[in-house]
């Protein structure tokens, strides 16, 4: 996307201004989104994003600029503007570019640049709509979408790195709305991956529609949630958002280096219950949060974050490595050329255990089974987090009593990690978008169903 000669001239120019390190990140991505409202196509949107990000590093200081223009003069102008306050004699010189084509460990076939497959996506969403409506008369509407993106990146840096990569994302979701005339409730289903529309073969539209409708119908009958401190069983798949929020963000060197994470000085210490093993893995074939290389050009890897409750690794990008001394983990990620990379999660999960859901429920006198979780947020400095329950049930005397609505779980990362007492066998992954300092990136969360002994449940009963 940018010829090597131009890249070399721009990086040479940046180094002549005294930068310790210079990097050019070129990105072009095409996106297509098909949206349906019940049994009609609401919209088809498509577009091209293109831009170039230029990062200069002076000591621990990061200077970053971006533009939509790909010419040498514009890139040199940005470098000059960025370096204006830090001009000094050159301290390093560009190494000869050594092009490295990364191995594609996430191959995709039905990619956007070949065919957007709009008719096929519409047919899938229409089938899902029919299945949702067939699940109950109270399903009043569905909203579906299929998003497909093809991202091409190219990276040059002053260490002589020249590499490129292609990433193909696909995500489908369906929301069902149930109504009984006075109240409305929603249910949803979604799946995605780092692959093309061949994902269709593995996502049955009938199951999609039924899953979204089932949740909407359950929520329509849900009662206000009891509140207070109590044990909570958190469902598999997207239930892993608890670990993502409560722990994952606190292990990114973006927070660790600034001592803005409660775990910044706890490497090697027991930070979780001894039954907890947690991993962040970018290598999982065709998973939504996977990558071949990170956005700094480093091959991705599997990073064991917690082993038997002990903190074993942080998620480390280039600047994080420089600031903390820990080795890079191929975790430098960014939403687009508009962001400097930062340490970010990929596919992050708690490994499965051997407990059974029935035993977890039977062990609770009064508590909640949060079978499906929504989103949440965390304050890295204190570890305080919250996240919402999108499908939950009240448990009393070891038995599920009734569905509950509007429940939120509140705790702190360090506390909840130590309160995990049972982990099940039904491991699964779920995809989402994670927003942080370098924008919104695709990440997968995951776990088997697990029990936390004490969480504050917010409800309105």
């Amino acid at each position, binding site marked *: 996307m940018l010829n090597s000669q131009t890249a070399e001239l721009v990086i040479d120019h940046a180094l002549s201004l005294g930068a310790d390190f210079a990097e050019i990140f070129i990105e*072009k991505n095409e996106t297509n989104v*098909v949206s349906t409202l019940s049994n009609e196509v*609401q*919209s*088809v*949107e*498509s*577009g*091209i*994003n293109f*831009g170039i990000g230029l990062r200069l590093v002076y000591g*621990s200081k990061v*200077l*970053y*600029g*971006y*533009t*939509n223009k790909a010419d040498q003069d514009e890139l040199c102008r940005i470098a000059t*503007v*960025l370096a*204006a*306050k830090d001009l000094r004699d050159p301290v390093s010189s560009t190494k000869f570019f050594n092009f490295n084509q990364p191995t594609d460990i996430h191959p995709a076939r039905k990619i956007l640049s070949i065919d957007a497959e*709009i008719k096929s996506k*519409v047919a899938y969403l229409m089938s899902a709509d029919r299945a949702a409506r067939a699940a109950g008369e109270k399903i009043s*509407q569905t909203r579906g979408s299929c998003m497909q993106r093809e991202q091409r990146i190219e990276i040059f840096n002053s260490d002589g790195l020249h590499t490129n990569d292609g990433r193909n994302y696909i995500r489908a979701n369906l929301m069902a*709305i149930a109504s009984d005339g006075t*109240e*409305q*409730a*929603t249910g949803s289903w979604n799946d995605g991956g780092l692959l093309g529309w061949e994902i269709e073969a593995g996502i049955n539209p009938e199951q999609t529609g039924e899953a979204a409708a089932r949740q909407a119908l359950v929520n329509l009958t849900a009662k206000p949630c009891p*509140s*207070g401190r109590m044990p909570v069983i958190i469902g598999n798949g997207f239930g892993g958002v608890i670990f993502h929020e409560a722990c994952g963000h606190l292990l990114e060197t973006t*927070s660790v280096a*600034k*001592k*803005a994470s*409660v775990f910044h000085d706890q490497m090697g210490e027991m930070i979780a219950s001894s039954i907890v093993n947690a991993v962040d893995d970018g290598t999982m074939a065709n998973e939504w949060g996977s990558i071949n290389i990170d956005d700094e050009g480093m091959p991705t890897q599997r990073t064991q974050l917690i082993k038997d409750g002990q903190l074993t690794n942080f998620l480390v990008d280039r600047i994080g490595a420089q600031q903390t001394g820990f080795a890079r983990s191929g975790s430098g990620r960014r939403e687009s050329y*508009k962001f*400097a990379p930062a340490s970010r999660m990929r596919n992050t999960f708690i490994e499965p255990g051997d407990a059974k859901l029935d035993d977890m429920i039977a062990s609770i006198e009064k508590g909640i089974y949060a079978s499906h979780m*929504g*989103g*949440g*947020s965390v*304050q890295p*400095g*204190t570890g*305080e*987090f*919250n*996240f*919402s329950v999108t499908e939950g049930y009240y448990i009393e005397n070891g038995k599920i009593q009734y569905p509950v*609505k*509007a429940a*939120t779980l*509140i705790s702190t990362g360090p506390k909840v990690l130590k309160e995990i007492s049972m982990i099940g066998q039904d491991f699964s992954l779920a995809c989402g978008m994670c927003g942080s300092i370098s924008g919104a990136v695709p990440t997968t969360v995951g776990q088997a169903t697990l029990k936390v002994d004490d969480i*504050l*449940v*917010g*409800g*309105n009963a």
Partner: protein
Amino acid sequence: MSSFHSASNTNTALMAERVLDQVMSAGATGDLIVDEGETISLKACEGELEEYKVSSSRIFGLRVIKDGHIGTAYSEAVDADALKSLVGQALNNASFVKIESHENILPNSNQLKTDDNLLCPQEQVSIDQKIQMALEVESKLNAMDKVKNVPYNGVQDIFSQRHIFSTAGLNALTRSRMCASYAYALVEDGQKTAMQGTSQVSRLFSELNASSVIENTYEKCIGLLDGKPIPSKHYDVIFDTECQVSVFGVFSMMFSGKTAKDGINPMRNKIGSAIADSRLTIFDHPLNSDGFGYHLFDAEGTATEKSKLVIDGCLQTLIHNSATASYFDTHTTGHAIRGPKSTLGVNLHQVEIARGTEALSSLHSGEYLEVTDLAGLHSGANAISGDFSFGASGYLCKNGERIQAVRGITVAGNFYEMLNKISMIGNQQSWDEGRSALMPSIRFSDVAISG
């Protein structure tokens, strides 16, 4: 930035003309949004500049209507081939979409332009002054008692421009500038920690006040350091302006003509009905230039005006673009919204809640919970049903005095029911930090708090 304006705008107008000529040649109508921006963003860490970011961006967003079918496409690449592809993509996308008889390009050939002196004032300010402010906020806060660090902070100077063209001849241009300073500090006292932040915005950098960002952030952090949960029960609650604006924002779809058309707005059949306490009056006031929600025209080029949304608790209207207005056989209210990457929608510009009658002394009488921080605003709310459950922090107060800092609680309920549980409305309005809405304090009764 002035050279950027003139050179870029000539260029942009020529490219827009070429794009819309291609649209008309294909027998379609359309409009084109061109968003451009320049930003400087600075962050400090331990007395040194940590990040210095400069950017320039431009994106074209095209909407076409051909035989009743609507298609959109966008591009950040703006060479001739890319723009030709933009038109082709939009037309191709349109061919898959159902016929939408209510959505048309308005016969609006107005030449509109906002006042640069008002929205985009120029001043002599050097990059050194901006760096100095970033360093000052971070280092002074860092030096204060119990402050461990200031992990999130920054100074920004953002120039943005939107140009809308249509095949009907519309040429509407708006430019604005926003300068901002923000800081989030982490304070620590033994095992106790708290992280809070504040921000400030202005159209002029010289009007930003580093001292007030420092003082407000510090006060917020220290105030909550000793916070602990309170017993679970129903309390009277007053959200601070920041939180109150956020909560109303989360449920703003209740006014949307688009969600009403889609059948999911719970207020769709309640125009003319009482939906809130009879003392509640809500406007949308896009022409108040004191706020950053100022809009002279909407995304279809329709002139905006002050809209009466709720008067004395009674819903007056939903907000519309020309398509939702046509569907409901009414007039557009000038609330069309469209980004380069999105389809036509509706949105409020700048909410204003009318002041009530209660002086602070009565608003703050007896026991109540003052909520100063909410977490999980989007994940914890269902705008369709009105149910919400948020993490919260604040202060338990008695007769206007903060008697206990409160953390680790949740506030839950149903927003649409809460509008009928208003106990009092204050007689003073204030802006939120982002100057996006103007509201008085509202005291809600009987709100479920879990601690």
